[in-house]
């Protein structure tokens, strides 16, 4: 997996830069790297070009961007307050006044679905970023230095991985005690991030192990560069492709985990609108008011689909061999 992820441009530069004057080697590089239009492009530009060719990943990107806008401008977009109840208008069917109907407290479902995007996206994105922030450095250090440090870090990671993911996430949420609002959301972020740190640590460690044996790393050492500089400037960029792909698909997984925790009553608490919670709360009324559970469910589905489509496209664009 890691070998496949190595951007073409970096390798070429390191070979021709190191031994440019030796005619034989230059010829050898020419043989190994056939002339093509792609050669002059940076790996990033190549990725973007491939991504633009894929309709499905562009659809995914469009969904993601649209949802981000909905989440940011929820206050403007929502026709009503998502938490204000109106006892005179409970269980309204979808109509012009209430496009998605109202729930048992007379709250406007459209407004709740729009505001629900905030919790879902915030948890999805932030938990993955937090897991990245902790997992990537751990993986870099473990892979680069090896030895006891590696053993120690990976043992802790394996301990977390030894748990069935939901068992750990549920117990963490019980310990954190679910609450409403921003703090309640941050607790969910923390629980999901902890469960997902080892995924990134392992992924990065695997890539580092293969990258650090490469000649250009040896060249850096010979030039007298210090370890932190080598890790930041040479090792990390060569591990980026799998990190980016796993991040995008990881957001989709985190959103599902958040929805599941909410469904079990362990996510962000009411009155903060959350899709998983709304879906669960409205199942009691499913017999006569099916749409109440349907719309939050569709919202979760579309969001996860968007990230999955985009993530799939990214994987194909950045590295066709990555699975």
């Amino acid at each position, binding site marked *: 997996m890691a070998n496949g992820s190595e951007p073409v441009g970096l390798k070429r530069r390191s070979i021709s830069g190191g031994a440019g004057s030796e005619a034989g080697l230059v010829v050898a590089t020419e043989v190994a790297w056939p002339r093509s239009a792609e050669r002059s492009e940076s790996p990033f530009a190549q990725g973007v070009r491939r991504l633009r060719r894929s309709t499905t990943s562009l659809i995914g990107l469009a969904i993601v961007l649209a949802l981000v806008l909905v989440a940011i401008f929820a206050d403007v977009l929502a026709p009503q307050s998502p938490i204000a109840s109106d006892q005179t208008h409970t269980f309204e069917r979808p109509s012009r006044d209430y496009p998605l109907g109202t729930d048992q407290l007379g709250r406007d479902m459209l407004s709740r679905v729009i505001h629900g995007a905030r919790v879902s996206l915030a948890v999805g994105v932030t938990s993955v970023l937090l897991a990245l922030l902790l997992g990537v450095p751990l993986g870099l250090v473990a892979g680069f230095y090896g030895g006891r440090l590696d053993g120690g870090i990976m043992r802790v990671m394996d301990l977390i991985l030894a*748990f069935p*993911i939901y068992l750990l996430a549920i*117990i963490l949420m019980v310990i954190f005690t679910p609450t409403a609002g921003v703090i309640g959301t941050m607790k969910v972020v923390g629980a999901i991030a902890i469960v997902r740190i080892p995924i990134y640590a392992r992924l990065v460690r695997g890539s580092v192990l293969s990258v650090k044996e490469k000649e250009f790393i040896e060249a850096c050492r010979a030039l007298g560069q210090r370890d932190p500089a080598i890790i930041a400037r040479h090792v990390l960029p060569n591990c980026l492709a799998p990190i980016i792909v796993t991040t995008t698909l990881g957001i989709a997984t985190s959103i599902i985990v958040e929805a599941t925790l909410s469904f079990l009553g362990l996510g962000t608490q009411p009155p903060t609108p959350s899709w998983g919670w709304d879906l669960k709360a409205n*199942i009691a009324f499913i017999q006569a008011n099916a749409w109440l559970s349907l719309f939050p469910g569709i919202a*979760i589905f579309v969001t996860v689909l968007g990230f999955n489509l985009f993530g799939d496209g990214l994987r194909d664009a950045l590295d066709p061999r990555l*699975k």
Partner: protein
Amino acid sequence: MRTYMLRRLFHVVPTVLMISFVVFVMMRSVPGDPVVSVLGDAYTEEDAIKAREAYGLNKPIVFQYFIWLGKLVQGDWGASILSGRPVLQDVLIRLPVTLELIVLSMGVALVIAIPAALIGALRQNTWADYTATSVAMIGVSIPEFFIGVLLLLAFSIGLGGLLPSSGWVYLPGTCPTMLCGVSLWGNMQHVLMPAFALGVGRAAILTRLLRASMLEVIRTEYVTTARAKGLSEAPVVFKHALKNALIPTVTVMGLQVGFLIGGAIVVETLFAMPGLGTFGIDAILARDYQQVQGFALITAFAFVVINLLVDLTYTFLDPRIRYS
């Protein structure tokens, strides 16, 4: 091979103990005191101290863990703090329900995924392939509980209540008490929707993985050789290609077990099934330490053993893989 298996089996014990210890410590750092809920309105400080002493909750955590462990090796899983019922008895009553759910859902997953993946890989870039991959994409993006809600809407509320929306009828021979409904047909009616809700997502993941690895395998030289020597398509696909393509798929399915346990909790909650999932979540929410310990123990054990089985499947799928 034999020594390898023994060594692996030997590793199961410390892993399970470690998980149970971490859960033990974590549960005791959960805010809230089970003694308060046991005593309810009759709570007095004096009774609370007595109750804590009776349950051994006044001793240091590590000490409590070893007491629990000491009883465990004698076959005593402890008793629920809230109901007083023996934990092992409850776990054994609920285990068959969850096992049936998980086995059937894996069955559903395989029955959907293998044909879909084969069609996708063998007819790559045709409408059949696009249909299979699109449906799989949709499948991985729907959480289990939403599939469950859609099934409820279709089969319990629509179609004149064809399938029951909740509850359970036991398979003949698995009824834990004298007082439960037992019938094969009733059982099938109750398990069908939960098994589909849990199986569809797994089917989607399987389809995507298997299609991708089939595409790789089908282009290898030994498949060309098999075709060149005149083998008909069926043995080429099933005997040569599929078996090798299953290896990476089995690995990922092993990793999926962690998600399957969460899925079982959710699906059992949605369909109000008396399985281990509802047992576990109820125990965690009620802070019933002993029950949570029992739940963690059986889950961790299942998790570790399934991962071991996954490793052993490799030797069957690819005889070149030998453990020593």
